[in-house]
């Protein structure tokens, strides 16, 4: 080193000085770049710190009918707002850093969807336990059993998770059930970005759309369920078709010529041009690969058809909408996929259909009844719960309004997002076809959410050439702050009943130890963590919350009618919450019923812990009891439509 120092200046001092200057400049740049990155990450780190520090303060046991928001420390929404603000500020930069934005989005998903997993003792939702139980049954027996449960008629998801747990070597699918909302929402990002990039090459709008989607996905179907996985497949099918098979010029000259010959041709041709604007050219692939992709899409859809009862029809409706205005090349695809979906339903779900076809047919076309069941029917239960439901509606309506504004803003600039509008409109007729247990509007929201999110993002980020101003960015942050509060209230508004405690899970374990196979297991409603094992060994039944308003003697008579060798009533804290939220059964009424049960000569308290009580029907009073059954119990009585039993309220 010393040699070079002594020799080089002597030969060329100017060169050395220049080199030294360059070195110093690079060092400064490096130093400042690192600093810059560190500075940019400060809000993210701070947000995560706020969130982590808030977690121990969340006591889910103290939740009211307002749900998680009633116990949520302010740090959590603050953390979300901080992340959103950091991201929104970054979207103002001329050069975007995609890893930086991706990191923020991942953190956002973790906070929005992982908080409950971390603060609650057990996986949420009673339906999660049923799904685990179905997977467990398939793993154990290698078979499906449609006679036990309607969900076996669409077994794709359960077979997949059962195989997955065996391949990984897990004891139960419960091990990955708890984190389902987080990893599913991460999974959704890839197909969502495909969909968004089909209408805009501007990464700002794509990122904003992704953020908005995650902030408004309050419906909560992303738990360990067939619909959670199938939603990903729905997005993938739509994303791939929009990416590779969209028609750059949907207007047909033949149709235009035909219209031109009609009366009022100028209006007709004008209207036709308006609804068939050009779109971005599709991504290019060799024709053989495109053909292979079509085959893959059909195979994936076939899996969707045998995994979930609703997703195939939303997929077909979406594609029909796109084909109607020639937005995609695959004109036969909706018919082909429709045939696959209908064939599965009409051939493979006969046990379910035979019990429900009359109801399904009678509901078909009953728009008023369907809307009533989906909107006004939901406005029931305790006052706090009704407030949460109102908030749900307001939240959804606001997003629809934002999407409409975004659509108009881009329309004014000559960007006609007809495909997105079609994808929003096309599933609406399904509401007239089915009430789906009063849940179809929720599903409608879910299946139109991606397209609404990207249009809503267009309000601010719809002009690619223009960077959003400071004022607009501040407005985005303010709106996102409001959305965040709304998100926690709407998504986790029923958390009091959706959360399962360790005491409840342990209580159910005790139930399986106490009750011999063939017993009748009864609960007022289905909101308890049972059926995750021994699916076929018991008769499970959930008559209604009205039994809580009757006497134990009435209940004993009802249980004796079932003629099982033993009968048990299970009461848990989650059931109490559901009875209160949805049926208006007060806490005092619940306690009174429990007291009556304790005193009743027809029942014996077989087990009790903090959140669970198990009452056994006394054999002495059970004159109608049959001898102990040796065959697995028939669960025909508990065959409920997945619509009613499978989805969270």
């Amino acid at each position, binding site marked *: 080193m010393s040699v070079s120092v002594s020799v080089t200046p002597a030969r060329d001092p100017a060169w050395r000085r220049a080199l030294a200057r360059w070195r110093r400049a690079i060092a400064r740049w490096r130093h400042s770049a690192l600093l810059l990155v560190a500075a940019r990450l400060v809000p993210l780190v701070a947000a995560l710190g706020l969130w982590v520090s808030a977690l121990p303060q969340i006591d889910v046991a103290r939740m009211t009918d307002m749900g998680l928001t009633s116990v949520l420390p302010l740090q959590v929404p603050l953390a979300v707002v901080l992340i959103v603000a950091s991201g929104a500020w970054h979207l103002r930069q001329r050069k975007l850093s995609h890893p930086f934005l991706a990191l923020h989005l991942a953190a956002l998903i973790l906070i929005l969807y992982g908080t409950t997993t971390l603060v609650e003792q057990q996986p949420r939702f009673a339906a999660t336990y049923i799904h685990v139980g179905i997977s467990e049954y398939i793993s154990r027996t290698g078979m499906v059993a449609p006679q036990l449960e309607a969900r076996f008629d669409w077994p794709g998801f359960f077979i997949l998770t059962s195989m997955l747990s065996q391949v990984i070597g897990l004891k139960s699918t419960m091990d990955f059930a708890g984190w389902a909302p987080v990893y599913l929402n991460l999974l959704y990002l890839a197909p969502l970005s495909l969909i968004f990039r089909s209408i805009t090459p501007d990464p700002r709008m794509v990122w904003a759309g992704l953020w908005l989607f995650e902030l408004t996905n309050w419906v909560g179907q992303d738990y360990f369920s067939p619909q959670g996985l199938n939603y990903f497949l729905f997005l993938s099918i739509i994303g791939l078709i929009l990416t590779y098979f969209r028609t750059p010029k949907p207007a047909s000259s033949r149709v235009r010529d035909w219209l031109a010959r009609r009366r009022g041709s100028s209006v007709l041709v004008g209207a036709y041009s308006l609804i068939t604007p050009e779109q971005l050219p599709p991504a290019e692939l060799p*024709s*053989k690969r*495109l*053909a292979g992709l*079509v*085959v893959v899409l*059909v195979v994936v859809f076939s899996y969707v058809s045998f995994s979930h009862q609703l997703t195939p029809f939303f997929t077909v409706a979406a594609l029909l909408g796109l084909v109607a205005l020639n937005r995609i*090349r*695959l004109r*036969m*695809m909706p*018919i*082909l996929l429709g*045939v*696959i979906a*209908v*064939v599965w339903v*009409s*051939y493979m779900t*006969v046990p379910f*259909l*035979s019990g429900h*076809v*009359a109801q399904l*047919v009678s509901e078909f076309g009953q728009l008023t009844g369907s809307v009533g069941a989906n909107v006004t029917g939901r406005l029931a239960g305790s006052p706090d719960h009704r407030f949460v439901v109102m908030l749900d509606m307001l939240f959804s309506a606001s997003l629809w309004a934002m999407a409409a504004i975004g659509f108009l803003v881009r329309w004014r600039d000559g960007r006609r997002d007809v495909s997105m509008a079609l994808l929003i409109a096309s599933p609406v007729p399904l509401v007239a076809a089915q009430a789906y247990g009063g849940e179809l509007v929720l599903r409608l929201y879910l299946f139109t959410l991606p397209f609404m999110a990207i249009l809503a993002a267009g309000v601010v980020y719809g002009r690619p050439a223009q960077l959003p101003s400071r004022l607009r960015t501040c407005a985005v942050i303010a709106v996102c702050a409001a959305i965040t509060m709304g998100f926690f209230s709407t998504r986790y508004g029923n958390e009091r009943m959706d959360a399962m405690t360790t005491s409840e899970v342990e209580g159910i374990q005790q139930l399986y130890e106490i009750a011999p196979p063939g017993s009748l297991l009864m609960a007022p409603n289905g909101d308890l963590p049972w059926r995750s094992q021994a699916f076929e060994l018991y008769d499970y039944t959930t008559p209604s919350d009205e039994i809580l308003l009757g006497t134990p003697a009435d209940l004993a008579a009802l249980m004796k009618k079932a003629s099982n060798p033993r009968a048990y009533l299970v009461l848990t804290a989650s059931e109490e919450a559901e009875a209160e939220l949805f049926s208006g059964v007060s806490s005092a009424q619940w306690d009174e019923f429990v007291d009556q049960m304790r005193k009743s000569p027809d029942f014996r308290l077989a087990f009790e812990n903090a959140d669970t009580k198990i009452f056994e029907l006394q054999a002495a009073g059970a004159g109608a009891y049959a001898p102990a059954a040796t065959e697995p119990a028939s669960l025909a009585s508990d065959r409920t439509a997945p619509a009613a039993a499978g989805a969270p309220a």
Partner: protein
Amino acid sequence: MTTTVTGLVSSSLTQHSYDFLSTHIGLAVIILLAFVMLLRELVPIVRNGDAPLQVRGLDVAVLPLLIVFAIVVLARLADLLV
């Protein structure tokens, strides 16, 4: 009397229930329908949209099979309702 309704067809229709017929020949016809529709979708892609003859030829089978499919599904549904 005709090629469509021969004595053998009549006796098969009266011997078997519609459930049996639709789960055997009905399903075979629907599988063929799916196959032909897939072909109809693939042909224009492989030939870069220049395949009017192929599409017309396949339509000869697609539309009749679609009608049969509709009849099969409606009949099965009616069977369940009855």
